[in-house]
């Protein structure tokens, strides 16, 4: 059962793989431009991203090879492993740029919070497969999955990475779309959420985090610091116009108005150099990928497959949506990378493994 039999091979999802390959290719080309500085050579970021791509491809192959139904048994160990990595990070990692997100093994630096999301999706898919959500009508029945989700989120909050913590929370929360809990219960949750936010605002957030939210509400508030990023990003996107300024020709990009244009603001590079047309192409490819992922969920022959596929779509959708919203000035500046585009090895690896899982569910849809 660890091999890919002929029937699975016949059902291999070439469309999904094709979409992935095109997006990865565009992502690399875009990263080249974002890190390009004068003539001569490949930026070290591009080289590292290529290495991550090689490793990510292996992860993808591995994620395809094992029948996803066996992954039910691997879900818990994988989840626990990611928690251990998060804990290790908290204990060992030096503080890099204000948050402790990295774990360093010699030349290898990994960001366990990226992997932890995948682990959380695996255990949550397993839990909902065993506890059919159509029968869940009361909030308290959700305490177990809530606990499974809160554990990694808490550890990520302790690393002071609020953006990724929020992202993990959103990915996990996606599953509640399946439960049948009445609206007034959710109203209670919403009230609780507002209260929690008020509390967090007063006591939990650091000054710069409050500042970023205020900057979003009013980007001109402090034009020299974080509001600056939002303004420059909007200028970069808008100045791209309909057709863009051309590859490697974006003035905002090449003059580096955005310090994190190769990570969080990588989409602004694309929008500036390729214009509305290029942006629509990339967003269109993303929509196709995500909707196809949901089709895979619907076609899945069991609940675990469906939930796993939905989780994988959530893993790609939420960062993409938050990141693009941020670049377009529709969301506050929080450090969330754009899947397959932003520089970052751990994220690329996790994204490719996620797509591998989708391929896995897709090709085994007829196996009975």
């Amino acid at each position: 059962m660890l091999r890919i039999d002929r029937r699975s091979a016949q059902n291999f999802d070439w469309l999904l793989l094709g979409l992935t390959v095109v997006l990865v290719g565009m992502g690399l080309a875009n990263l080249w431009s974002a890190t390009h500085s004068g003539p001569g050579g490949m930026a070290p970021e591009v080289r590292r991203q290529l290495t991550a791509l090689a490793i990510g491809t292996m992860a993808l192959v591995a994620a395809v090879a094992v029948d996803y139904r066996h992954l039910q048994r691997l879900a818990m160990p994988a989840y626990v492993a990611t928690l251990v990595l998060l804990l290790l990070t908290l204990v060992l990692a030096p503080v890099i740029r204000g948050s402790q997100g990295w774990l360093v093994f010699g030349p290898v630096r990994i960001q366990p919070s990226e992997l932890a999301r995948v682990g959380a999706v695996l255990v949550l898919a397993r839990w909902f497969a065993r506890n059919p959500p159509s029968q869940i009508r009361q909030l308290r029945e959700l305490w177990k999955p809530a606990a499974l989700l809160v554990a990694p989120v808490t550890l990520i909050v302790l690393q002071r990475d609020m953006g990724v913590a929020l992202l993990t929370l959103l990915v996990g929360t996606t599953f509640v779309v399946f439960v049948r809990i009445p609206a007034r219960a959710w109203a209670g949750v919403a009230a609780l959420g507002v209260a929690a936010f008020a509390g967090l605002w007063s006591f939990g957030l650091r000054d710069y985090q409050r500042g970023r939210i205020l900057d979003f509400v009013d980007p001109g508030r402090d034009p020299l610091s974080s509001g600056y990023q939002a303004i420059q990003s909007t200028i970069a996107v808008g100045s791209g116009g309909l057709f863009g300024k051309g590859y490697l020709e974006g003035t905002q990009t090449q003059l580096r108005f955005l310090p994190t244009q190769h990570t969080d603001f990588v989409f602004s590079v694309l929008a500036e150099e390729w214009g509305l047309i290029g942006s629509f192409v990339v967003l269109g490819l993303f929509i196709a990928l995500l909707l196809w992922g949901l089709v895979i969920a619907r076609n899945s022959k069991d609940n675990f497959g469906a939930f796993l596929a939905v989780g994988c779509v959530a893993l790609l959708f939420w960062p993409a949506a938050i990141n693009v919203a941020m670049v377009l000035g529709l969301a506050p500046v929080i450090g969330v990378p754009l899947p397959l585009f932003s520089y970052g090895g751990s994220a690329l690896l996790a994204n490719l493994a996620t797509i591998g899982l989708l391929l896995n569910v897709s090709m085994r849809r007829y196996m009975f």
Partner: protein
Amino acid sequence: MLGNLGSGLDPHVERRVTWLSLLVIVAFSIFGLRLFQLQVIQGEALRLRSERNRIRTVRLEAPRGQILDREGRPIATTRAAFSLQAIPAEVRQPDVTWPVLAELVGGEAGALRERVEKPRGRRRFQPVDLVGDLSRDALARVESHRYALPGVTTDVRPRRLYVDGEFAPHLLGTLGQVRESQLKTRAFADYRAGEVVGQSGIESLLEAHLRGRAGGRNVVVDVAGREVEVLEEVEPEPGGSVVLSLDWDLQEIARQAYRRESGGVDRAGAVVALDPRNGDVLVLLSSPGYDPNDFVGGIDTATWRSLNDNPRRPLHDRVLSGQYPPGSTYKPIVAAAALEEGIANAETRVFCPGHWKLGRRTYRCWKRAGHGWVDMQKALVESCDVFFYEIGRKLGIDRIAYFARGFGLGRKPGIGLPQEKAGLVPTTAWKLARRGEPWIGGETISAAIGQGYNLVTPLQLAVATATLANGGTQIRPRIVLRRTDRDGRILEVTHPEVRGTAPVALEHLERVRDGMIGVVSSPRGTGHAVAVKGLEVAAKTGTAQVVGLQHTEDLDEEEIAEHHRDHAWFIAYAPAKAPEIVVTVLVEHGGHGGSAAGPVAGKLIQAWWDKKQAALAPAESPTLEDGSPEPVVTADAVVEGEGDRAAN
């Protein structure tokens, strides 16, 4: 075999997946609309902005707060310095730019080029600093060749200026670039690499107050890199000022006393002047000093090496961290202890034949011929060792230590700087713990005249003298009088602080103080040389042995190699009956206290006295000379003024 895990998809789940598809479509539609709005509707406007948007963010450094003396005279201030930078990406003709620039500002073309081009990567549009402090001539040369030097810019920044370089470098401290290791700590969380911070002294102690807050400016630049338009500007906030207790005039007098005329290195030593009533530090000098201006922009290797390798160790803060045996300046404390413990009184007499025996060992008095019959007054005035051998033996080391601590010895004076040392007050317990050996009776004998294990810093000895002078109150030296904002509004005042009381009755202190008055007033007194006309001064001399007496006792002072000569101490206060100033002077390798250190203290007290007299004299009829068109002067006021003048 896997079939039991699930059998077909729940239609409910299928329905809800459709909801998710709608969510994806709605979210991305919003993005599409927003892209359309930005890129098509506002596209033209934003494109124009991006073309104009050759914006550079320039950091505006905050001028560091001033450090002032007690009368508001600036000791450390800021001046405008011109700096030279290059923007790597805009240096389009490196083969021309670097040689021309090297010619204009001095230096080597290759070195300049390397400095700018080495850090490759995404910093290519950030200015790289080339020269931090450009002379006006060099600036003029660069400006006139500006068009030949695209990518090269100049900038004005505030830079720390120590008005009189060597004024009090050890106290003020130095500035330097924030260290890598500091950047990692919480205290430096909002600093950026390359920023200048106080690395020692007051500069470091009050860093947060002095630093101010950097501002910034977004400027539009043209092709040549010149600023065309300022878009936004956030003004820097200058740092707050600090008013020190130091008195510029007195500090200067102290410095002059150590200066070598012929351009040699200044003599080594330390001077402290305190106000014993409130702890104000009027003079705090460690000599030789150095010029902290050399450190501001990063010190060059040659200067650093010459400072570091100098045998007189100018970087060493003698006044706070130099520890020396107190010598005979310890005797007033031992005398006070003996009086308080009832071991001696005014009538106690000891015969000094010039030496004293304990067991088989003989201890000498500094006066080989002996002082004859000595009472406490004479013992202090003439600094007779034998008298103190006798009462020291009776007191024992632990009782001496108890009183020494009461005067503030053996603990840090509490000025707040990290280099402060606590000295050493030996006890039997200390020796057992530190050396693992019991205390030997003979060691008490050396300790009683301030030799042996005893160690004090000049500031400590000043605190002890102040305690003696003010009637037994151990006071914390106050160096910072107040902190103000840049406009002089007071933010915080340092209040005088009492740290303890010497356990000695006032009448006993009086007895010791009478002896110290005799040191100056008596013709046989060891400190006779410092007498100031019209002012009663109390003092005590001291000699801290550098090498064992046996090697040098047969030689004249002039014949001993300088670095083997003893250190000279002098402590004094005035006016003797109501002290307002305490002076402690140390001259390293100065020989005897009275001859080497005494004159320094004498000059300081004289200067202080002259200044006080001048301040007390009536102002020259200000009501008549202030130029007001209608002088409103009552007859009474005029008479009063004349009366005052007559009285002087």
